[in-house]
C-alpha cells in the first residue's frame, strides 16, 4: 500500500485522499437525511434567497439552480456558485450529516413494514422539498411538472425501445391522442366552451374526475397503438420504425384537419387541474406500475422476445400477446403523459407533437439508458434541465443536444444507466453499514 502511494503523482494522491475523506464522511448518510437537507435548503432560500440573489447580481432567485443564467450572463457565474454553495449545498450537507444518525434509525424502523411504506414516506418528504422549492417561483413549478411528465413519457418509451428492443417512433402520436382525448373530455364535461357548449357536469366534480379524463386519454392512445401494432408486428426492426413514424405524422395531420378541436390553431381552455401534486402522484403511479411490470416474469418475457424471439416462442412465451400488451401499455402511459401536458400548458397544438418532440423523447431514452427504470428517470431529468439551461440558445440547442447524444452513444452505447433495475429497498434502507464498507474498501486500496 505504501509503495502504491509513492508511485502516484502527489497531486493525484491528494485529490484522491480528499475524495476518500468526503466519501467516508457521507457514506453513512441515508436518503432520508438528504431529503431533509433538501427541505432545509429550500427553507433557507425562503429566508435569505431574495437578498442574497440581489447581492450577487442575479436580481431574483435563480429559477433552476442558476442554470438559466449561465448562458445569459456568464459574468455572474462566481455569484451563482456562491449562491448555490450558501443556499443549497451547505444546508443540505450540514443537515444531512447531522441528521444521519437519527434518519438511519428511522429508516431501519420503517423497513420493519413493507417496503412501500418506507417508499411512501420518502416520496412524501421529496414532495415537501419540491413544493417548498417551487413555492418561490411559478416557473419552477412549471419546469417541475414538465420534468415529471418527461419521466412518464420516457419511461413508457423505454418499455418498447429498451425492454422490447423495437424502435418505435410513434410516441408523439400517442401523446397527441392522449392530450386531445383528455382535453376534449374535460372541456366537454366541465368547461363552458365556444365549440363544445356549456359543461355537461357540474365543474365542481371536475378535479375528482380528472383521473378518469387522463385514463380516457391513455385509452385513446392505446387504440391508436392497436392500429400501429396490427400491421407492424408482422415485421421487425426498420419497418416498425417507419410505420410508427408514419403514424406520428398521420395523427398530426388528422388533428390539423379536425376543425372541431381547432385544427392547426390548437385547442385551449383546459382547466387548471394538472397541479404539481396531481402530476407528482400520476408520475409515482406510472413509475411504480411500470417497475412492477418489468420486474415480473410476465414483463421479463419482453426481454426474452428482444434477445431471441424464436427461443421465447419455443419456451412457452406467447410472443405476439407479450408484444401487443407491452405496446398498448406503453402507449397508454404516453397518452396519460400527453393528457397531463395538455392540462399543464392549458393549450395544445398539433405542432407540439412532431419530429422535435420525438427526438426529445428518444434522446431522453437513449441518454438515460435502455432497459432501466432508473436510466429513464436520469435521462428525462438530466435532459430536461439541460434544455432549460440551453434555452437562451433557442434552436441552436438542437445542435448541442444531438452532439451530446453522439458522445454518449460512442462511449456508453446503451446509455448512462442501462440494464439496472430500480432497487427500491436498497435506496430507502439505512446506510450506517455502508460506513464500514467504505472504510474497509479504502483500507484495502
Amino acid at each position, binding site marked *: 500500500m505504501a509503495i502504491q502511494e509513492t508511485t502516484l503523482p502527489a497531486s493525484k494522491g491528494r485529490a484522491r485522499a480528499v475524495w476518500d475523506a468526503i466519501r467516508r464522511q457521507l457514506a453513512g448518510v441515508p436518503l432520508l437525511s438528504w431529503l431533509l437537507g433538501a427541505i432545509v435548503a429550500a427553507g433557507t432560500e425562503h429566508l435569505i434567497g431574495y437578498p442574497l440573489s440581489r447581492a450577487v447580481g442575479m436580481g431574483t432567485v435563480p429559477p433552476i439552480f442558476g442554470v438559466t443564467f449561465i448562458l445569459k450572463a456568464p459574468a455572474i457565474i462566481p455569484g451563482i456558485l456562491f449562491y448555490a454553495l450558501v443556499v443549497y449545498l451547505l444546508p443540505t450537507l450540514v443537515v444531512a450529516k447531522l441528521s444521519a444518525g437519527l434518519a438511519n434509525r428511522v429508516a431501519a424502523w420503517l423497513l420493519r413494514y413493507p417496503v412501500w411504506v418506507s417508499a411512501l414516506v420518502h416520496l412524501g418528504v421529496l414532495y415537501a422539498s419540491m413544493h417548498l422549492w417551487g413555492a418561490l417561483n411559478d416557473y419552477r413549478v412549471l419546469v417541475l411538472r414538465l420534468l415529471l411528465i418527461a419521466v412518464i413519457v420516457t419511461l413508457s418509451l423505454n418499455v418498447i425501445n429498451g425492454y422490447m428492443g423495437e424502435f418505435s417512433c410513434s410516441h408523439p402520436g400517442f401523446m397527441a391522442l392522449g392530450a386531445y382525448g383528455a382535453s376534449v373530455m374535460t372541456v366537454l364535461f366541465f368547461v363552458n366552451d365556444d365549440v363544445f357548449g356549456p359543461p355537461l357536469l357540474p365543474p365542481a366534480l371536475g378535479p375528482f374526475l380528472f383521473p378518469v379524463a387522463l385514463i380516457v386519454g391513455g385509452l385513446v392512445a392505446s387504440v391508436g397503438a392497436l392500429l400501429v401494432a396490427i400491421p407492424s408486428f408482422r415485421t421487425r426492426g426498420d419497418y416498425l420504425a417507419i410505420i410508427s413514424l408514419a403514424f406520428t405524422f398521420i395523427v398530426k395531420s388528422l388533428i390539423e384537419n379536425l376543425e372541431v378541436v381547432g385544427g392547426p390553431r390548437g385547442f385551449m381552455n383546459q382547466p387548471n387541474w394538472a397541479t404539481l401534486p396531481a402530476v407528482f402522484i400520476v408520475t409515482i403511479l406510472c413509475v411504480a*406500475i411500470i417497475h*412492477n*411490470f418489468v420486474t*415480473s*416474469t*410476465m*414483463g*421479463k*418475457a419482453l*426481454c*426474452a422476445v*428482444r*434477445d*431471441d424471439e*424464436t*427461443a*421465447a*416462442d*419455443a*419456451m*412457452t*412465451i*406467447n*410472443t405476439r400477446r407479450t408484444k401487443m*400488451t407491452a405496446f398498448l*401499455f406503453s402507449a397508454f402511459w404516453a397518452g396519460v403523459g400527453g393528457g397531463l401536458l395538455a392540462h399543464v400548458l392549458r393549450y395544445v397544438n398539433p405542432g407540439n407533437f412532431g419530429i422535435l418532440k420525438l427526438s426529445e423523447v428518444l434522446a431522453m431514452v437513449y441518454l438515460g439508458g435502455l*432497459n432501466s427504470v432508473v436510466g429513464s428517470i436520469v435521462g428525462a431529468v438530466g435532459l430536461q434541465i439541460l434544455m432549460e439551461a440551453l434555452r437562451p440558445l433557442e434552436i441552436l440547442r438542437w445542435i448541442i443536444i444531438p452532439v451530446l447524444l453522439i458522445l454518449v452513444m460512442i462511449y456508453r452505447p446503451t446509455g448512462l444507466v442501462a*440494464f439496472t433495475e430500480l432497487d427500491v429497498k436498497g435506496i430507502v434502507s439505512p446506510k450506517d453499514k455502508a460506513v464500514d464498507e467504505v472504510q474497509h474498501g479504502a483500507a484495502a486500496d
Partner: protein
Amino acid sequence: MALLQIDNMTHYFGGLRAVHNYSLTIVEGQIRGLIGPNGAGKTTVFNLITGMYKPTEGTIRFQGQDIVGRFPHDIAAMGIARTFQNMRLWRHLTVLEHIQLAHSANLGYGLAGAFFGIGKRQRREAEIKEHSLHLLEIMGVRRWADEVVINLPYGVQRRVEMARALATDPKLLLLDEPTAGMTPEELLDMVQVIRQLNQELGLAILLIEHRMKVVMDLCQIVQTLNFGEVIAEGTPEEIRNNPQVIEAYLGKEVIT
C-alpha cells in the same frame, strides 16, 4: 399409445424439398436418435414438430392430438420442449431468469398481478423461483443462478439451456446436437445428464447428434436422414453397418 406420431410428413421451402415422406413414432420413455449428413433436414424436422414451420403435407399427433398449425408456444406448453443447435439463450438475462421465463405458460397471475403486484403474484413468483432453483440444482448449475448467461463457460450454457427446456414441464425433449463443441469431459457429463433425464424424470428424448459414440451409448433406435428422406432405421448397431448410411456419410466408392 405413442407419445408422438408423425405420418408421411413432407415440407417444401419454395421449390426445395427439405423433408419427404417422413414418419416417426416415439413411445414414452424412449430415447431415439436422428442422424444424417449436414443439410439432411434434421433440424427442419425439429422445427416442424415444434410448430416453427407448418408441414406442407402429413400429420403430427402428440398424445393423440393433432398439433399441425398450432403456435409454437402452445405446442411447447403441451409438453414438447427443445434445445437449439446454437443454444439461443437470452444474452441480457440471468440464468435464473431464463428458467423462470420458461414457466410462462402457467404463470398463474394476469395483467393485474403484473401491473399492481396484487393477487397471487407474490406467491406464484416465489413458487416459480423455488422450482427454477430446484431445476438448476438438478442440472448442477445452481451456483451461477444470478450470473448473466453470456459470461458463463460453454458447458454451463448448454446445461442452462437444458434446464430452461425442462422448466416447460415437457414429456418429450428434442435435443439438437447437445454435445456440439464440447470437450471430451464435458461430453461424458452430458451423456450422463441425458441418461439421467430419461431414467429419473421418465422423459422421452429425440436426439440429433453427429458423434456416433453418443448415439451408440444412448439411443435405442436410430433414424438416418439424407436429403430429407429416411434411408435407414434400426438399432445403433444395424445403422453403423448399413451400407447406405456409410455411403451417405462417406460417399460411394468408385471402383475402376
